[in-house]
């Protein structure tokens, strides 16, 4: 067995997705986490509380989720790789300050172990109900990055990736897990420390005056003037220029305040938007993300066994929305069945990119809260093809 004092617990484990998420964060170099207890995300925070101080980090159990996200943003500006973890109700509370992280270009990882909503809903039952709220829930126009794991293994891999993306592009990055894989145990392989590519943010050198630096609004990512280094950083979420100085009167500054962080993500999206396809020549494709991708793949396999020409496309990145990838798929297939673990949150986006080229339909779970039975998907594939 691995020594639990190590940063990277290299080896094969049979543990929960929530455990894997914590280990991914620690392996990625996270040194600060804040969170408030909430089912089904609590195990991530519980495990972080035990692990972080052993690797030189800090865990704060906050008084609410608002405080958790704010403290994490504060710690990120203090130079820490920072995260917070919660479920849907917590995301709802965090929304205003998620916008703060967007506006101030703060690297931050937010883990959302989603559960059945609306409102208090069912704490222990997983459902991908927050997909749109993490992209559009804070006020104003903006873009974030969101990743969708389908297994405990990916709760490790994509947490590492989330930290790397947050640090590389100075953006909040969401890990959209759910209660099902968060609480599911499965094989988790953690590679040796040397095999993990870990990214660090850039920090400006030289001038101590923000007026002589570009601290914000560079589509190629401005170095981050973290606190405590005599950089006299000026950080505000109010409309500001590239030096961080508030400007509430110049329309050109207002335009770039909104647009540059959006353009930054759009410009670099090809570097990180990830989809996974199998049987790319098939004339019918199932598009899915997160836990139910496994149902979709199982259904496609059943279909092929029955002589039907069916493949799958899985979105590992759901934001920024993989529009090009959907268009490319739509050009090749006759039928596209969108399989989501909700009532159709990405369906309108997918339909908008695909409907000109092929037939598009949506399929939610037979019973919300129970991931799609492959047989259930298969019956709908048959209906669509017929």
């Amino acid at each position: 067995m691995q020594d639990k004092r190590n940063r990277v617990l290299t080896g094969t484990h049979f543990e929960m997705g929530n455990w894997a998420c914590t280990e991914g964060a620690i392996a990625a170099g996270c040194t600060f986490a804040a969170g408030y207890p909430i089912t089904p995300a609590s195990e991530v925070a519980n495990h972080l509380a035990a692990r972080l101080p052993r690797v030189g980090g800090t865990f704060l159990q906050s008084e609410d989720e608002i405080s958790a996200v704010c403290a994490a943003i504060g710690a990120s500006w203090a130079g820490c790789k920072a995260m917070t973890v919660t479920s849907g109700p917590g995301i709802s509370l965090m929304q205003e300050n998620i916008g703060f992280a967007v506006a101030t270009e703060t690297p931050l990882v937010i883990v959302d172990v989603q559960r059945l909503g609306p409102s208090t809903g069912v704490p222990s039952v997983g459902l991908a109900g927050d997909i749109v709220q993490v992209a559009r829930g804070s006020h104003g126009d903006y873009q974030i990055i969101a990743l969708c794991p389908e297994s405990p293994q990916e709760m490790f891999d994509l947490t590492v990736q989330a930290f790397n993306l947050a640090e590389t592009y100075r953006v909040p990055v969401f890990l959209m897990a759910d209660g099902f894989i968060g609480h599911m145990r499965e094989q988790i392989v953690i590679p040796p420390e040397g095999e993990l590519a870990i990214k660090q943010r850039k920090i400006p050198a030289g001038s101590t005056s923000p007026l002589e630096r570009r601290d914000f609004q560079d589509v190629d990512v401005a170095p981050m003037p973290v606190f405590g280094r005599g950089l006299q950083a000026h950080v505000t979420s109010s409309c500001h220029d590239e030096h961080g100085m508030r400007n509430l009167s110049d329309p050109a500054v207002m335009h770039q305040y909104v647009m540059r962080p959006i353009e930054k993500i759009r410009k670099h999206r090809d570097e990180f938007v990830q989809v996974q396809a199998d049987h790319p020549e098939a004339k019918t494709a199932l598009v899915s993300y997160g836990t139910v991708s496994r149902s979709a793949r199982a259904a496609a396999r059943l279909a092929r066994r029955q002589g039907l020409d069916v493949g799958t496309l899985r979105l590992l990145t759901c934001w920024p929305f993989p529009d090009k990838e959907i268009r490319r798929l739509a050009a090749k297939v006759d039928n596209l069945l969108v399989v989501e673990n909700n009532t159709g949150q990405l369906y309108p986006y997918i339909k908008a990119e695909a409907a000109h080229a092929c037939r598009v339909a949506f399929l939610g779970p037979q019973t919300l809260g129970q991931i799609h039975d492959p047989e259930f998907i298969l019956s709908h594939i048959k209906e669509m093809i017929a």
Partner: protein
Amino acid sequence: MPQTDLTIAGVGGQGSILAGVILGSAAVTYDHKYATQTQAYSSELRGGFAATWVIISDEPIEFPRVTHPDILVAQAQDSITRFVDVLKPDGILIVDDDMVREIPDKIKRIFKVPATSIARNQMKAPVTANMVMLGALCQVTAVVSRQALESAIVQAVPKGKDRLNLEAFNWGFEKVQAP
């Protein structure tokens, strides 16, 4: 067998979920197979219902939900009420004979072990009933090797309690029988 789906169910406090974790861990860590383990339990952690679903396979597992188990391990009458109807028609039912009184006639492959009385009377440790059930499961189905299960038990239980639990496991392995 390429893939086996199991449900282990009981009431909170009987250790059904831990039994599922040990089973999955044995398969992955020591038998080098693939496994998934999920669970559900009532808000009251003692006395409510508790169930775990385990899939063990020679290949990577795609669909991780157990809808119709091949094997149902029932530690309480409530487990029969909740889960016996979804057991596959030729599925195996393994019950704690002390806790389960009524079994529907349609179930043909039944195995019984007096897990609660073994744990109480032989082991003087009622908490080991889940290990007795694991021993019985191992004997009846060999879904995971005995060696792997024993190693996983040693790893999962508190230090100093491994012999007690292995002994309970052995009782289950020896005493399970088809009525």
